[in-house]
């Protein structure tokens, strides 16, 4: 089934296009189908929430979308690039250039300061350290951490760490932002701040943002909600709609 949200027509190709994508782990008796023939088109310029109970396949799906996992079957196209046919090294370069990640546990490097952490994707892209630090500083200032540039992750609150992680995810101006439970480790207020920030900074006409969450408090931030269960997409909802519990 190919599902495109009619109430949110796109003016150009979909940012993410999945066709009959499946992911199977193990073989024989231990075989587990994590993703079961999912087809989906997600447009540019919107924040899409991927929701569902634990174990429904959300994380596996974004891993496939982000090029971290290969699909067992089906076609995966991200930012008009066919990941299914992309080799390992090209996929690594593609990720480095086009995808930003925000993780549930932030995954900041504890030995680096906030600004150094935020500059890592630029260093990966080959920028010189001073230039990378300069750009990361600007971005951190824009997310309200201008005074904490030289703080280490251990000296920052969870919300601040997540803001550093968002700055890190956006510093190299990726066209796809993948967020995995960005509010799960935060209190309600910090969670809202983080989601606000993602909306303000990341949602752009030429970008796509996909957020995996099971935090119903953030449903209002999504332009679309893709609800999953047992490895399948069970509901596609527009802004303001809520998935059935």
């Amino acid at each position, binding site marked *: 089934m190919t599902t495109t949200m009619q109430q949110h027509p796109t003016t150009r190709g979909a940012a993410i296009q999945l066709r009959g994508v499946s992911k199977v782990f193990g073989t024989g008796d231990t075989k587990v189908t994590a993703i079961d023939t999912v087809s989906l088109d997600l447009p540019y310029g919107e924040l899409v929430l991927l929701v569902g109970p634990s174990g429904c396949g959300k994380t596996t799906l974004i891993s496939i979308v982000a090029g971290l996992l290969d699909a067992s079957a089906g076609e995966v196209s991200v930012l008009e690039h066919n990941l299914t046919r992309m080799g390992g090294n090209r996929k690594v370069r593609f*990720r480095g250039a086009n995808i930003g*990640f925000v993780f549930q546990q932030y995954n900041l*490097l*504890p030995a680096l300061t906030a600004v150094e952490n935020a500059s890592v994707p630029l260093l*990966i*892209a080959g920028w010189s350290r001073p230039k990378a630090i300069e750009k990361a500083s600007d971005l951190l200032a824009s997310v309200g951490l201008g005074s904490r540039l030289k703080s280490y992750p251990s000296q920052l609150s969870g919300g601040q760490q997540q803001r550093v992680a968002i700055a890190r995810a956006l510093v190299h101006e990726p066209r796809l932002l993948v967020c*995995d439970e960005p509010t799960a480790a935060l209190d309600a207020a910090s969670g809202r701040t983080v989601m606000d920030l993602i909306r303000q900074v990341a949602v752009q006409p030429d970008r796509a943002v996909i957020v995996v969450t099971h935090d119903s408090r953030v449903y209002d931030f999504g332009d679309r909600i893709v609800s999953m269960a047992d490895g399948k997409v069970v509901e596609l909802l527009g802004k303001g709609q809520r998935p059935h519990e």
Partner: protein
Amino acid sequence: MNWVALRMLTGDRAKYLGIIFGVAFAALLMSQQLSIFCGLMRNTTSQIRDIEGGDIWVMDKNVQFVDDVKPMSENKLLRVRGVEGVQWAVRLYKGIARARLSDGNFQQMILIGLDDATLVGAPRPDRILHGELGDLRQPNAVFIDEFGWRYLFGNEPFQVGRTLEMNDKRAVIVGMCKCNPTFQTFPILYCTYSQAVQFLPQERKTLTFILAKGNDGAFPESVCAAIHEQTGLKALTNDQFFWSTIQYYMQRTGIPINFGITVMLGFVVGCAIAGQTFYLFTLENLKQWGALKAMGVSNIRLVGMILLQALVVGLIGYGLGIGGAALFGYTFERVVTSTPPAFYFGWQIMGITAGAVTVIALAASLLSMRRVLFLEAGVVFR
């Protein structure tokens, strides 16, 4: 990204120092034990290195090493002199004599008897600390080595005229020289050959070695071969005699095995400490490595980062270990003055230790590398 790798490495001070400690400990133990081993082995050849002048040692065909004394008849000297290619050949006595000290105690001595006319084999002038070589031609005269003097007379300042008694003959110390430390640690006495014969109990044969020199331009090895062919005696160049002596001690004593075990222990312990700490360090940072992988760091770059970390801890640990061993040797030589040092800290030791440390660092990083290379980048979502 190299900078990120180094910051990751130094970020956890305890682990960082733990890895360096492991490598440094291994480097220290290996280089120190190897230095003592090589020092001991070199000490077995001290007389070969001390007795200079000739480039060929001629001896009984059954002699296996420098302390394996098998006297020859005096006419062998004439036969060696008659071999084509031999420029000159002189007699040399080297053996153990028993000396009676002024307090009535007895002490074993290494006695070296030099050719009366030429004194070939005597210490070099720059190694003479007191007296003149010519004084050896005085009746009953002997030179004693520096350590021997300290061994017999403690910290008393050197004075000409101190006497010993060997074979009921009075030996008068007329000079002191520097000698390489010996394996047996006995004092060394130099005297003329004719004097040495008198210091020994009556024996039918006293000629233990013949020192010879080949004609100018002749290869010592060829001259050795000619001597062996024409006289049936064993003839070795200085180098050959040096290595055959070392080979004897290597094969016939437990020294290499015992030291080898300690060196191996140092290597294994170093591998274990450094490897385990480095591996744990990688395991704890696995999510960070995964995040870097997800963000587009290639496997080759990750391997480079891990190798850089290993290189840094390897270099620092090696430097500390080698420095520690050098300091040990330096202190040992200055603090323990009563016994000759058995500590040879040559470039070979540093090279071998560097090789072992490289293996330790590589082994430690290979384990870690394996984990990182086979790490699914998707781990960051778990």
